[in-house]
Every structure is written in C-alpha cells, then in structure tokens.
C-alpha cells in the first residue's frame, strides 16, 4: 500500500520528535533536584539524582496510590467491558425500540462538564456507602468509558457476519456457549482496543477520582497533588511520579499492541 507519501512520513517523523521532546523533558526533570530544575537550563542533567524516584519508591503513600489507581482502573475496565459486550452485541444484531436514540444518548453522557457533577457524584456515592472505595471511582468512570466501549465494540461486532450466530444456533450451541466460546474470542482484538481506551481514560482522570476518594482509596493522580505545597513545588517528585504513571499505560499498550493494530484495522475505531 502506498498511502504513506513522503510528505506524511516526514510529518510523522516531525510529530514523533514533537511528541518525544516534552517526554524527554519530563524524564530529565525527574532526574534533577528542584533547585536545579527551577534554577538553570540544562539540556542534559549535569547532576543526575535518583532521589525523586527514591522518594516515590520508598514512601508507601505513593505505592498505595498506585495500587489504588490500578484497582479502580481494573474494576472500571472489567465493568465497562462486561456491560458493554452484551449491549454492543444487541446493538449490532437487533433493531429495537429506541435503539438509535439510546445510542446517541449514551454518547451524550461524555459531554457532561465534570466540575458541576462532582458534588452530585460525591453525594450519590456516599449515600450508597461507596465513598472512598475504588468501586465508586470505577462506577463513576463508567459514565465515560461505557458509552465509548459500546461504540467501539458495536463497530467491530457489526463487522462479524451474523451467519456465525446462525451457524452456532444450528450447530446446537446454547447462546451462552456461543457468546463466550465463539463470539468473544472472535472479537478479542476489539476487546483489546476497548481495554486500552478504558484504561486510558480511567488512569488519567483526576477530578472524579479526587472527589470520590478520601484517604483509603486515594489514587496516584491525587497523591501527586501533594507535590504542591506552601513551601514550594516539588517538580522533581512530580516528574518522577509522572514517569511512573506512564509506565503501566505503556505496558498495557505493549501487551495489546497486536490487538490494537489488528483491532484498529478491523473495527470502527
């Protein structure tokens, strides 16, 4: 395929450089002391220090933040994918009362400006006793991840011929067997893509996560805010934490990359 013209390859190269430079800056910041960061301009850190990383690795609060974040991200991903799968399936296979309206309505939920919804969210989850639990954050993030998951999965599933469903029925398989053993494995790339998107959203979101947690379930993004204090800004630790927060994401992408490429190739996303 000759779609990548020379121009776009140069643009891609330029864009990659554009992407990498701030990331590089993040990394150098993580390797320098605060006085160094705020005081001088250096292309390469002249006095590299691992103190910032050490601070994060030794302080249990950071570790706990990671664990908390991971737990609600995983929960959110599980919930999103598991409720989106049947919904996407019926959207792709059936026409039913209000289906189109429902589909658009689902998407509109992404439009809610979070700031004002924070207090209702807080009230809602405290009234059912979920405040300060990973589940609360996971459920709240569902508002954003579920519609997207449904949309992505629906795109893929529409591409899977309905004859497969028919065939399975004729072969005598129960719906459950068909769905879990035949249909889902066919769509595993789609699930990979969906997982990526759920992970991406839930991992980086700050406002809801902050509002719905106290001290028990405090996520990493909220722990980060402690770097801003009345005695200055702890750039180095913030950057080191930033570096650490990127890592799980990169791991996820690396592991689902085959699915991503394949999934992107097949589906709507």
């Amino acid at each position, binding site marked *: 395929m000759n779609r990548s013209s020379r121009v776009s390859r140069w643009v891609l190269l330029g864009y990659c450089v554009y992407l990498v430079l701030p990331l590089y800056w993040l990394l150098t910041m993580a390797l320098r002391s*605060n006085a160094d960061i705020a005081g001088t301009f250096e292309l390469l850190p002249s006095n590299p220090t691992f103190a910032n990383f050490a601070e994060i690795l030794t302080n249990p609060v950071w570790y706990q933040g990671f*664990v908390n974040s991971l737990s609600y991200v995983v929960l959110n991903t599980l919930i999103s994918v598991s409720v989106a799968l049947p919904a996407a399936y019926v959207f792709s296979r059936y026409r039913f009362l209000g289906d189109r309206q429902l589909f658009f309505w689902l998407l509109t939920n992404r439009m809610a400006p979070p700031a004002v919804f924070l207090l209702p969210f807080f009230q809602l989850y405290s009234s059912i006793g979920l405040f300060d639990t990973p589940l609360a954050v996971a459920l709240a993030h569902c508002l954003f991840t579920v519609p997207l998951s449904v949309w992505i999965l629906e795109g893929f599933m529409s591409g899977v011929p309905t004859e497969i469903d028919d065939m399975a029925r004729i072969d005598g398989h129960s719906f459950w067997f068909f769905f879990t053993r035949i249909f889902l494995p066919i769509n595993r790339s789609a699930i990979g893509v969906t997982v990526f998107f759920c992970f991406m959203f839930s991992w980086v979101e700050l406002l809801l996560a902050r509002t719905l947690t106290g001290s028990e379930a405090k996520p990493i993004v909220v722990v980060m805010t402690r770097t801003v*204090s009345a005695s200055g800004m702890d750039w180095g630790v913030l950057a080191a934490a930033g570096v650490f927060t990127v890592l799980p994401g990169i791991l996820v992408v690396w592991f689902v990359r085959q699915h991503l490429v394949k999934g992107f190739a097949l589906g709507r996303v």
Partner: protein
Amino acid sequence: MGDCALVNSIVRGITGVFIVVGLVACGQTSDEASAPSISAQAYAANAERWVDSEFQPSTLTRDEQLAELAWFNTAAEPFRGMSINVVSETLTTHQYESETLAQAFYEITGIRVNHDLIQEGDVIEKLQTQMQSGENIFDAYVNDSDLIGTHSRYGYVVALSDFMSGEGADVTSPTLDLDDFIGLSFTTGPDGKVYQLPDQQFANLYWFRHDWFSDPELKEQFAARYGYPLGVPVNWSAYEDIAEFFSVHVKEIDGQRVYGHMDYGKKDPSLGWRFTDAWLSMAGAGDQGIPNGLPVDEWGIRAEQCRPVGSSVSRGGATNAPAAVYALQKYIDWLKAYAPEQAPGMTFSEAGPVPAQGQIAQQIFWYTTFTADMIKPDLPVVNADGTPKWRMAPSPHGPYWEEGMKLGYQDTGAWTLLSSTPLDRRKAAWLYAQFVTSKTVSLKKTLVGLTPFRDSDIRSQAMTDMAPKLGGLVEFYRSPARTAWTPTGTNVPDYPKLAQLWWANVANAVSGQVSAQAAMDSLAQQQDRVLERLQQHGTLGECGPRLNEERDAEYWFSQPGAPKPALDNEKPQGETVDYETLLSSWTAQDAEMAQ
C-alpha cells in the same frame, strides 16, 4: 478439545486481573495484619521509648511528658482499635505528624490515624464538600484560620469551647494549656468561642539579603542616590527605592543578575492569597485595630457589630477605595518593573523558592514556611558556617497605613472538627489533635517544621540555640510586634465564595486588560453581590450580612477611618531602619513585656 489458544488469552487476562485484585487486597489487609494488638503495659513502654528517642527536646521534663502520655493512653481506651482519617496540606510540619507522630500516637493509644497530606486547595474542597453535604469525609481537618468568619457563622464546625466543656470533656487533656497557643485569637469567633485548635503557624515578612545590605560599597551607592541609608525599609517608598536600586542600578553582583524585588502573578488561586492575606492592610486600606481592623478589615469589608455591611466604598467598605487601588497598582508596577521576567508567570509555590537561588535582594511578601528550605547548606544564600546570608524583618507599610493597623499576615493551620463527624470519631480525632499539639511533642515538631505555635516553645532554650540559623524567625516570634501580623478576620462571612473573586479580578489587572481601579470596582461589586445573597436568605443569624444603602463615596470618605480619600502624595520620603537596631528594639520590648 484444544481451543485453548484462543480462550487462553482471555483466561490469562482474567488471571492477570485477579492477581492485581489480589495484590490490592493484600496491600490493604497487610496493613491490618501488621498491626499486632498492644497490651496496656506495651503502651506505657512505647510511650517511654518515644519520649526517649523522639520527643526531645521538650519544654516538659521526662516525667511530665510521660504523665501527659499516660493521660492520652487512658483517655483513648474507649477508642482503641479505631482507625480515623485526618487531613492537612503538604508542609514539613504535617509530614512529620503524618509519618512520625501518627505512628507514635498509634503505639501509645492504640488509635490508628491515617494522616493524609494533600494540596491546600484540596483540603478546603474536601472540607467544603463535607460541610455542604453533611457526609463525613475526614474526621478532622487542619485548615487555616482564615475560615473563622465562615466557621463561626455557618454552624458546621464544632465550637471547641463548647466541646471541651461538654461532649468532649472526658477527652480534653488537662495539660492542653490553651493560653499557651499564640494563634488562639485567630481561631476565636466574634462570639468569643474558640473554633479551631492551632497546630502550626507562619507569617509573611519582609526578607532581604543581609550581606548585601551591609556591603559598604552598596550602602554608599544607595545613600548617594537616594539620600538616606540602605536598611530595612519602613515604608513602601523605601522598598520601592531599594527595589529600583538593585534591579535597575546595581543589576549585577559577582557577575550575576540581581533583582530588588520578587513576587508572583500567575492567574491561580494562590494569587488571591497574596491579596486577601494582608496586602490591602499593609498599604493601609483598612482601619486601625488589631487583629483585622474594625469596622473595615484587610479585605475592605465593613462590619458593624459583627454584621458585614458592604465592601464597596459606596456602602462604607474599602475594597475599591483609593488605598486598595494604590495597593494593587504598586503590586503590579513592582512586579513588572523590578521582579525577574519569570515572576509574573509564577504561582506562590513556584515563586517561593526563588530567593534561595541567590538573585533576589529583598522580597516584601515572604512566607516563613520557606525558612526550612532556605537554611539548607550549599545554598547560595547560606554561609559556609550554616548561618543565613538573609534576614527576615517586619514588612514595610504603605502611605495610607497608620499605627495600630495590621502590618502583615500570620496564619495558623488549626484543627477543625465538623459537627457532621460522628461523635466517637470526633473524640478520637480530638485526642490526636491534642497529641500533636501537646507540650510533649510540640517543641520537637517546631524544630522540625519551623512553624511555632506555642509560646512556651518559642521561649525555650532550644529555640534560642537555633535562632542564629533562622535569620530572625525566633526574634520575630518573641517580639510583641508579631501581634500586628494576623489572618483573615471575622468580617469575612463566607471565605470560599469571596476569596475566589480576588484572584480572577487581580489577574485581569495584572494582564493590563483592565485598570487597577476597574478591577477593584468589579471585585467590590461582586463581593457585595455575594453578601447580598447571604443577606437575602438571612440564614447566618446575628452576624449575617446586612448591606448598607449605597451612598455617595464622598460621604464615606468624609467619615473618620476607612475608606480613606486619596492622598495627594502617595510616595512620601523613604524611611529605613538598621536591622540590628530593629532587633535590639524587639529584644528590649520583649524584655519589657516579660517584666
């Protein structure tokens, strides 16, 4: 059948998830598991161990300390095994509490405390959320006493005076010694009740490079140019001259660019603090009367009895009075003319450490929270022997300022208990609050965090020993002058709603989009609108706002006190005072007081 290949990936995924969930679970339970039950004897032993290993020095004797801890142990008995959550902003002092004192408290009383540290804004947000919703989020908060006007009016906060003699009498330490807390007046409402328990305290002061100020060559140059000696500026004219002197005329010292002024101006909530803390009162916008000026306070809000009646000049307030406009204008002018190019883009947190880099000659509005970070060895502002090259001194005042007015900001982070917190948790939290402020630990805590809050600690030998390294901190706290440094007062009926108005309006003026006058007019108007809404609903009781009728500005200008009419000359002759003279006058006053 071997359809494993495909199902495998899913199975593997799910297993992965369980591992993660398992890890999470372990992470959480391991905390519980590592908490062995502690017997009564063990508590006593623990107390001894902590006293010997950690809580030294102290203003108490070892026996007194142990007795105090024994009381905590007994009082905590009903709450043993409980786990409570408290929160405060990120500050060295609180870090010490969170990492060391909370552990000690647990080992001594059996109450587990999760002392959370978050950004200050987030503390307020959580506090607000709890107040608004009535849902318990944290069992106790450490927040600034600026909210005293809000706390005393809205009724969400437990009045400690009532609590200590009522519900909480059994958990109130007999050795608390309330009068020893230097910030107690800040946390006392207009009704005379104490609402919060001070936990750490800091002020904003004038900061300067003592080494440069005592450099004969520079002194000579300055005197030649301005006609008076280089020293600690007493008024803004002198500050302005010195700023100009360093930024424009000296420019370089030892080959390095230097500046005569440092400040910050990024549009950020912290820009509001810059103003609501003391700036207007330093310029002289309010009235005389410590702590905050009555009837008009440092925000320009006028109160009659305890009722706020307006902030616009037309209602008798001073938020947009000439003095306030002057204050804002000076802030902007200096920021642009004398501060480093980056300063207007910085927040409080970013700007704070800048003087430590050694390019700043003086800073009018410097928070003592940065002390700890400015005495680290190897800094350009620290001598080889570990003494600082800088000193702190009282801030200069503006032309509208009169004797007896607030001269700067001093605030105390104080323990706040909310009435929506269940009583037993509240009691346990109260125990913790008393523990971290108890005389047993307070001196040690003060030495770690340099935010003294007990008079007994300030006057201790340990502090005297420490004084040379702290650039005047100890001297300041020991001087009677410190009473001129106060937090936001009780005239402000709803701190959160009103404080947010400041930074947005100030930022508009900083960017040059509107004039200083227009910005303050708009601010005053918005403040009055908030007051008006509070008045409409009439829920704040006796001390709720009741706006004055609007009148011609001249009427108010002709009344005594604030708002004051514009001065013809806003730049009087500069005045300075020699630092050493200042110090000795403090010491003398202190000695006088002591007698």
